[in-house]
């Protein structure tokens, strides 16, 4: 029995305005305006394009990370999965393999590593925070063994360069890749059965299983996509810096996770979506960009970055008080 009485509502604002996603976009705009007020050049197309280009790497990784986090898990194997895939591709190219085949191999490698992640999570039921970290260590080892810590000498083919750093009609190609990935993510999450299952796992895996869905396959899919996205980001980064090197993934351990959560997706799973992750990625990139050029000590930058994340989440990331 629900005695829903509209007059009793405490807040008069429309509910969509109060959602995390909306607030995160508002905050993005506010932050951007602040940055532009401090340095007018921030509002230039040149700068925006730069932010979008760099944001694309986090954004692409966040596609997989969002899917995984919606199931209530996390993927911490991104850094070395990304690096290994990129180096694998570069090695193949340096041995004369054609670009499409090398790219396919990188994507396949990333996807396979993702699938390996799902084994620990779905079959052995080891918390992904630890299992994927183990995978990350494993992939670091694999990279070092594979390359003896010397990534291949390679002339990065123009197509891959374009993926990471090209411009088409004045628009960065990485941004286009991101847009495609974002559409993919939004369709997956909101239009497909698989997407529905992702949310269901995050809310109540037993209920999904008892509804006749093999939740292990859903995990498999989510992690495979996350691995695929890591590899794709690796390819784009190879293009961006026209080389592969061992430290490629070092920025992508926790930052994409932060982007997803700032975008309003619940780290416990079951709610949120990619729309928020887009603004989350942009907020993170904007903060990093502003802080990297502001002339204060690194110490101060760290403190400010951490504090802003907390303030953002205090504004809209709070859990509801519940008696349940």
């Amino acid at each position, binding site marked *: 029995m629900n005695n829903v009485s509209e007059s009793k509502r405490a807040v008069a604002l429309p509910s969509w305005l109060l959602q995390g996603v909306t607030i995160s976009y508002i905050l993005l705009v506010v932050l951007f305006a602040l940055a532009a007020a401090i340095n007018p050049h921030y509002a230039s197309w040149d700068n925006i394009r730069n932010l979008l280009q760099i944001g694309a790497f986090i954004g692409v990784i966040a596609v997989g990370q969002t899917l995984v986090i919606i199931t209530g898990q996390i993927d*911490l194997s991104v850094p070395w999965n990304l690096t290994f895939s990129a180096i694998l591709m570069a090695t193949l190219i340096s041995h004369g393999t054609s670009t499409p085949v090398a790219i396919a191999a990188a994507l396949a490698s990333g996807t396979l590593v993702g699938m390996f992640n799902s*084994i*620990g999570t779905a*079959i*052995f*039921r*080891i*918390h992904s*925070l*630890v*299992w994927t*970290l*183990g*995978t*990350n*260590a*494993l*992939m*670091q*080892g*694999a990279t*070092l*063994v594979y390359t*003896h*810590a010397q990534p291949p000498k390679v002339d990065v083919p123009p197509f891959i360069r374009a993926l990471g750093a090209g411009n088409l009609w004045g628009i960065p190609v990485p941004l286009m890749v991101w847009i495609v990935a974002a559409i993919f993510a939004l369709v997956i999450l909101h239009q497909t059965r698989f997407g529905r299952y992702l949310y269901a796992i995050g809310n109540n*895996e*037993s209920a999904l*299983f008892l509804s006749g869905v093999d*939740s292990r396959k859903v995990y498999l899919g989510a992690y495979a996509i996350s691995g695929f996205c890591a590899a794709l980001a690796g390819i784009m980064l190879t293009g961006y810096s026209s080389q592969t090197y061992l430290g490629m993934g070092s920025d992508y351990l*926790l930052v994409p*996770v*932060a982007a997803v*959560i700032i975008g309003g997706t*619940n*780290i*416990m799973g079951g709610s949120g979506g990619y729309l928020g992750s887009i603004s989350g990625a942009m907020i993170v990139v904007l903060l990093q960009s502003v802080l990297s050029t502001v002339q204060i*000590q*690194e*110490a*101060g*930058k*760290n*403190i*400010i*970055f*951490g*504090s802003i*994340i*907390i303030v953002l*989440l*205090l504004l809209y*990331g*709070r*859990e509801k*008080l519940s*008696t*349940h």
Partner: protein
Amino acid sequence: MIIERYYSSLTAVIGLVLLAILFAYIQPMILSPFGVTMSANQGTTLALAALAQLVVVLTGGVDLSVGAMVGLTNAIAATYMGTHPAIATLVIIGTLFAGTLAGFVNGLIVAYGRIQPIIVTLATLYIYTGIGLVVRPQPGGSVPSGFANALTGSWGYLPYGLIFLLVVVGVAWVPLMRSRLGRAIKAVGDNRNGARVSGISVARTELWAYTAGGFFAACAGIFLTAQTTSGDPTIGTSYTLNSVAAVVFGGAVLGGGRGVALGPICGAYFLSLLISVLFASGVSPFYQNLLQGAILVIVLAAANVWRLRTRHWLNVMSN
């Protein structure tokens, strides 16, 4: 003592024993007083960091700032300790206080800000690292050698580091877990709503759990200071995720309610010794990383392999 609770530590205990035997087989010198002390000291920092992680994990949270708190307290201790014993003592107390305060701040934001612990502590990881850099912009500092020896030396086969760990466990961990607060910490992690209706203040319990976590992290920082006789603001990085690994390897459940100190402590020593064993067995450095990752993954999987044989599907899904 409910023996059943200690079953979860079995993997770590057995793993550690086997690893120690293997180590002694490959490198018999390790059975000397020096070898024992060295092995004990190697894992003590991580063991203390694992306690810091465990107390938070018991409430159902996770603390990604453990490493930053270890680094921060290391920086503080080594920067201000000087040479005078009285001042050194004051600085140790001050360092413990600083770590505890850092944990308290984590707790405040998690419990009263009602934000997911993982993201709160990720943010404070940046903040505490930043403060560490302010305290000590580059590695350095010094500590009295008496202090270093008191924590890292040994009396025959008995390493002081192990005694330090046992003292921390005996003076802080056990009383905490034997107090109402400790009971509340486990109850909150086990059944949050149940704890609430039983009259436990969930927020206050979380606050003090994170605070205790800060205290244990500071203990780790102090031991690390004794071991390195210096301060280095970036030194703590590896302890964050390793402490989570040690805790899970030690049988505690991320999600809360389950875990005893024995497992994570043994897990910490296991993870720390692993690299030495790999070195002793002459594995090429490129393979050392690979083997480390592979062993972690295989041992975790082996510990959970029974899940493949479970009869009820539902048992698989609820941990």
